[in-house]
């Protein structure tokens, strides 16, 4: 059965910067196999929440458990694939081919001095095929377009064969065709491979059919268990603080 094993459990989480409260009393659970989208205005705390789940920032107060363990005792980070917001903004002079970057996804699973095993190579190859970057494998990362780089970063995350994939606005700067293919891939990873997906986006309309739950974050969190029904204009206005309208995408029937 899906949706029974908690991966992340967050209780009464607060995060302050100086005297300013960035996140207030956040409690949530993310269960194995879920497809969760997080939306909210810029500066609302979405990325901050993700950074705390990944141990990159420490909360001011509250508790984060991963796979039943306190965050500071959790060791199996290779179960988590992360694609950060700025992933496509790479140093164009960095000496790395696409293959070099995707290989990084296997780094934490390899031993000292060890070269890539056949299994490692297969996983890297599969990830490049899934993200349609295999034909770019010998290209320097700095010569790729923003969209291509983004796909490479996701391929790197997939190469680690993660149980959970966390993506922070991965489609920034990516063209519409690539976006649609990307959403199809996320659906397939979630449904066919049971990879839990947590996804920060502003483009909720396109994937509303697929997501299990929607977290809306603007300092506080609201959890919507039925995203498609909950996305009313009133809710959006409340969340973003000004008049907001949902533009229905007829191609996707919502």
């Amino acid at each position, binding site marked *: 059965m899906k949706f029974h094993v908690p991966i992340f459990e967050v209780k009464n989480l607060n995060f302050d910067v100086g005297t300013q409260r960035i996140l207030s009393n956040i409690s949530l659970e993310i269960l194995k196999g879920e497809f969760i989208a997080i939306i909210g205005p810029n500066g609302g705390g979405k990325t901050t929440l993700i950074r705390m789940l990944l141990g*990159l920032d420490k909360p001011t107060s509250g508790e984060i458990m991963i796979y039943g363990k306190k965050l500071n005792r959790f060791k199996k*980070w*290779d179960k988590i694939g992360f694609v950060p917001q700025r*992933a496509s903004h790479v140093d164009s002079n960095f000496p790395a081919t696409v293959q070099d970057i995707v290989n990084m996804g296997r*780094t934490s699973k390899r031993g000292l001095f060890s070269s890539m095993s056949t299994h490692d190579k297969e996983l890297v190859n599969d990830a490049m095929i899934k993200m349609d970057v295999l034909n770019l494998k010998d290209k320097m990362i700095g010569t790729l377009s923003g969209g291509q780089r983004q796909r490479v970063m996701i391929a790197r995350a997939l190469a680690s064969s993660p149980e959970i994939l966390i993506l922070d606005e991965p489609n920034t700067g990516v063209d519409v065709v690539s976006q649609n293919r990307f959403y199809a891939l996320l659906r397939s990873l979630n449904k066919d491979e049971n990879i839990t997906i947590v996804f920060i986006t502003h483009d909720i309309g396109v994937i509303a059919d697929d997501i299990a739950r929607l977290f809306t974050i603007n300092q506080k969190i609201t959890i919507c268990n039925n995203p498609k029904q909950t996305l009313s204009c009133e809710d959006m206005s409340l969340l973003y603080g000004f008049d907001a309208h949902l533009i229905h995408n007829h191609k996707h029937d919502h």
Partner: protein
Amino acid sequence: MTEMLSYEFMQNAFIAGFIIAILASVSGTFVVLRRYSMISETLAHSALVGVAVGLVSGYNPLWVAVVVALLSAWLIEYLRSSFALYSDAVLAILLSGSLALAVIIVSLGGAFNNSLFSYLFGSILSVSKEDVIVIVVVGSASLALLLAYSKELYFIAYDEEVAQTSGIQVKLLNFILVSVVAVIIALSIRVVGSLLIGALMVIPTVSALQFKQGFKNTTLLALSFALVSVAFGMTLSYEYSLPSGATIVLCVLMLFVISLVLNNSKR
């Protein structure tokens, strides 16, 4: 050439020089990619404090330099990770502080002499058999550490936060990298000199980066540039009685200019 290599001091200098070229260029690749180029200059100046203490106290300056450079590397990492200080500001503070301290120690101890000059600018005459043994043993251990963690250090250089979220011990590896760099710099000052070792660490990698290759090829190019510079630089140093560090650095600078011109003319 045959005559030059028949002297024992030249054999020592070449063995030490080639090992240092390997160590400096391989560690330099990570240092440059981490945007840490200034750390080599700072640690070289810290090592000079060790040399000063060694010269004044009578202990082997090379060993004291290793210890002081290591302490300085750990202090840099501590200050960088524990306080809201800019990395380059931390390096600049320690660089000038170390130099001031070294000058005061040498001045008080009356050690302003040729021996100090050779540590500042390198001297092939000063490389003893014992120095070569220390450089081979400690250098091999340092290189082994770098190679053992090369894939992790490369990942960290590319994206420190994603590397951390994938389970790589970023803090530990940063600590290992600066420690290895500190040791390599302290070992190198006999041949290249404390004021010039930073160049041998940074310039071969920057030259190699001009060729826009992947990681492996970039490292191999940097290594080749460093080896060629050491070979030519030490030969020039022998032929014209020049400080070895300066001639090595001028050779590596020449290769940098050639790399720059070659790769800009392609565009």
